[in-house]
């Protein structure tokens, strides 16, 4: 993938230990899957930053390749891809997400 796009994504992931690439914003998600992922993070008391891929085609395409995962949303904790909305919901339902969020804020 394009080095400039990769660098932009690297820099975004530095912004916050919990980061979401989504369609829309946490206040106004534009897709049901993005809404579910953000809902699970909010319910886990996560502080997170997000990026609306609908605003930027380069990033929208770039995140498909960045962590070899073809769908949006993508949730990262400490710069590592955790997964999409299905994985985040499963982790939330098992209580694992809350732990991961807490641990990521601790360091």
């Amino acid at each position: 993938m394009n080095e400039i796009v990769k660098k932009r994504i690297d820099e975004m992931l530095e912004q916050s230990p919990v980061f979401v690439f989504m369609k829309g914003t946490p206040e106004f998600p534009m897709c049901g899957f993005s809404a579910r992922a953000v809902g699970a993070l909010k319910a886990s008391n996560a502080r997170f930053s997000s990026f609306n891929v609908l605003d930027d085609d380069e990033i929208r395409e770039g995140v498909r390749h960045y962590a070899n995962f073809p769908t949006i949303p993508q949730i990262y904790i400490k710069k590592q891809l955790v997964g999409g909305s299905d994985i985040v919901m499963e982790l939330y339902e098992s209580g694992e997400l809350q732990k991961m969020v807490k641990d990521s804020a601790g360091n």
Partner: protein
Amino acid sequence: MSPQSMKERLEKAYPEGTVEVEDLTGTEDHYQVRIVAKAFEGKPLLECHRAVLGLFDLELKSGEVHALSIKTKAKE
């Protein structure tokens, strides 16, 4: 993409497993799939989902499949 062709592709990839495909909206572009296959045993969830999504890379990219919700399990 039709539910049948999605199911066929999954069954080909996981011949020993059981595959359920649900067309969530009746429009053949929002799907939910559930796969129970030994191939997932001991693998991180991310890796399992990546493998399933990878089977539909072209369709996801073109938008032919707009949404694909996945459940993977190693056994019932």
